[in-house]
């Protein structure tokens, strides 16, 4: 028995080690002169055929549907960089093939799946770094972005997060981390400014606010930001936080939560919810006839176009921060073209998180091009000291502050009207007037 047991163990160890080793080797860089053993040892390339970056996303698991969409957005960015698109001349790296400063090297994104698991996010980040990627993008869920970017920090590899929104991400003092999306801190301030706008221009008389949030990193942080802003600024301007309603991550019924929200009778409800939860909430709002004057959503389920598909006309009049509105495509030809590419891949319009992940790839690729190097230190220096053109955003540019947060707010307020996401605030970029207060359920068509 002894010998067989030992033999079995030896076979298992050696087979898996060999297989995993081969797996890593098979994806080794092709014809590049950069060092792939460790990023800190990377030498400045003279000629490079392919520049690799890693993308870590939830491609399976609970957030797989979103992860697959985000991958498509990143692939669009890759196609634009690697092709020639004179019509997108204003979009960085679109005019010429590849990265011109690196001998027109092609960009290759290596995708990895973290399944929504922070442990896997870290190990995938390390594996991609070992394969010699010049930088990382991803990882959508903030709880996965955290360990993945910690790993990148340890190896001195730049990490450009697209849509992860937890404010805590840029509060960790990391040197190699930046984030494109507005965080929930900035978003909360925007929500209150929007309410002030509604009060001033539309006499909405919104004074009381409640927060419904998923009891995880995303939701709790959003709730804390509301508490902070009411205490620091907006409380003095007449707003009052009348209650908070947390719900479990694996919630299957929100009857109790909706009853709680109804009893709070708040003028506005801020939601930090994913697509499945917000769909349940809206159905129950209808059932219990809950219609606050405004419902504002943090970047999550509402921004997913599936929200409108799931709820049909019941999805109308909800609002939230987003970096994309299909109604703005007429004013933004570059965005319209990018959306066309994305739609060809997915059959759906872009949404805020997809556009943010798209831009994270462009920012990283442009930084590599400007740095003319695959060295992490050189790339991050460019990222932190450059104002990147982003004609696909209403604000037109991306610039990171000292903490790595994009200081040019890429989002604006959108409201669903007749099944479309209309830009409603700020006024100068609005595509429609906001509907306030939200009509009662029995007065809807």
């Amino acid at each position, binding site marked *: *028995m*002894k010998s*067989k*047991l*030992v033999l*079995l*163990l*030896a076979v*298992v*160890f050696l087979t*898996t*080690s060999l*297989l*995993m*080793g081969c*797996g*890593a080797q098979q994806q080794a860089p092709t014809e590049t002169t950069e060092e792939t053993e460790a990023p800190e040892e990377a030498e400045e390339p003279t000629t490079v055929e392919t520049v690799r970056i890693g993308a870590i*996303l939830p*491609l*399976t698991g609970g957030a*797989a549907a979103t*992860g*697959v969409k985000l*991958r498509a957005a990143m692939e669009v960015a890759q196609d634009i960089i690697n092709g020639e698109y004179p019509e997108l001349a204003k979009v960085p790296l679109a005019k010429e093939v590849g990265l011109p400063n690196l001998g027109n090297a092609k960009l290759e994104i*290596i*995708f*990895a*799946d973290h*399944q929504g*698991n*922070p*442990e*896997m996010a*870290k*190990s*995938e980040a*390390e*594996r991609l*770094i*070992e394969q010699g990627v010049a930088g990382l993008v991803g990882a959508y869920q903030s*709880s996965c972005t*955290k*360990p993945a970017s*910690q*790993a990148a*920090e*340890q*190896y*001195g590899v730049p990490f450009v997060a697209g849509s992860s929104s*937890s404010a*805590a991400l840029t509060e*960790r003092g*990391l040197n190699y981390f930046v984030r494109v999306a507005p965080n929930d801190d900035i978003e909360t301030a925007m929500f209150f400014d929007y309410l002030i706008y509604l009060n001033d221009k539309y006499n909405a008389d919104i004074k009381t606010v409640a927060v419904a949030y998923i*009891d*995880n*990193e995303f*939701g*709790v*942080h959003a709730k804390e930001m509301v508490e902070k802003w009411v205490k620091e600024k907006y409380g003095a301007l007449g707003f009052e936080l009348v209650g908070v309603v947390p719900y479990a*991550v694996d919630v299957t019924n929100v009857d109790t939560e909706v009853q709680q929200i109804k009893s709070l009778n708040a003028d506005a409800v801020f939601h930090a919810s994913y697509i499945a939860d917000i769909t349940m909430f809206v159905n129950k709002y209808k059932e219990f006839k809950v219609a606050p004057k405004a419902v504002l959503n943090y970047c999550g389920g509402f921004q997913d176009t599936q929200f409108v598909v799931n709820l049909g006309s019941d999805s109308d009049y909800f609002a939230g921060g987003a970096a994309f509105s299909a109604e703005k495509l007429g004013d933004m030809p570059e965005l319209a073209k990018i959306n066309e590419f994305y739609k060809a891949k997915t059959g759906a319009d872009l949404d805020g998180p997809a556009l943010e992940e798209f831009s994270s790839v462009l920012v990283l690729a442009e930084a590599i091009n400007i740095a003319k190097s695959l060295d992490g230190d050189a790339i991050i220096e460019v990222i932190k000291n450059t104002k990147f053109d982003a004609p696909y955003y209403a604000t037109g540019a991306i610039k990171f502050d000292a903490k790595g947060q994009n200081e040019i707010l890429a989002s604006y307020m959108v409201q669903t009207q007749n099944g479309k996401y209309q830009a409603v605030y700020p006024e100068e970029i609005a595509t429609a007037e906001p509907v306030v207060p939200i009509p009662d359920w029995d007065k809807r068509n």
Partner: protein
Amino acid sequence: MVKNKKILFIIIAILALIPIITRTKAVLNAIILLLIFATLGEAWNIITGFAGQTSFGHAAFFGIGAYTSTIVFYRYNITPWVGLILGGIIAAVVAAIMSYPCFKLKGHYFAVATLAVAEIIKQIFVSWDYVEGATGISLPIIQRSSGFAKRLFYLQFNEKIPWVYICLVLFTAVILLCSYLENSKMGYYLKAIRESHEVAESIGINPTNYKLYAMLISAFISAICGSMYAQYILYIDPFMIFSLDISMKIVLLTVLGGVGNVFGPIIGASIFIPLSEFTRIKLGGSGTGVDLMIYGLLIILITCYQPKGVIGIVQKLTEKSKKTNVGGEGKIEATSGN
């Protein structure tokens, strides 16, 4: 002390040699996770394999260990080595408090109770501000240029190799302890309790006390593994660390290898962890979930056709070969008789 010293030596030697053969991060990562989860499996085996008390709540002890060392470092800048021991002690105390009433339950009821307790502990951590609640904690990273002594002190390394050897030392210590326990008086008492609670009691064994001792040791080891895991991942939140997934992974790999045998968890972990990592690495980026399907299918096949785990397969093969040998010898004798 250890029945199969040779096998143990070979296992440790193979594990120690892997970082010399390959320095691929994916392989070393799988080895580190394999060692952490094999150690956890050993801890679980003490209470379930030896004492027969099925626990589905070991993630609670694992999480307490992870949180203790993290908080001690995050809030007070105290080395995780101190937090590691402290976490073990706290987990043992929690285990004593939760187990005493739960030991009055038998069979499935005990298993359900441990599951419930783990869930309660998770909810406490989700809503406890001092431990940053649901937002989780990112461990502060020490400077990249720090020397090895400082890295060892703070348990943070730029390379995977120190982790492999630290986890290997922990695993060796735990497997030696388990081997000792298995063949000690306490081990026999636990097995007696497992086979028949009433008979054990009738011969003067106090089942509650011995089950409690087993649970304390098991919780202490699980918490140390939790501390190691937190330091390795550098981020924890209640959902990942107290998850049912962790508890099930411990159960699954031990059952896969063979319950009640010190070699069961290491066999289970050495199949389960590399398989999981390998299928994800090779197929995960496709986003089709094929990796998870293959992985699930293999587990179903092993559990359906060999519920005693891989140890059971080996035992079957050994018995078969013994019978063949005996038959063969008989034939020879018969021939020579003629």
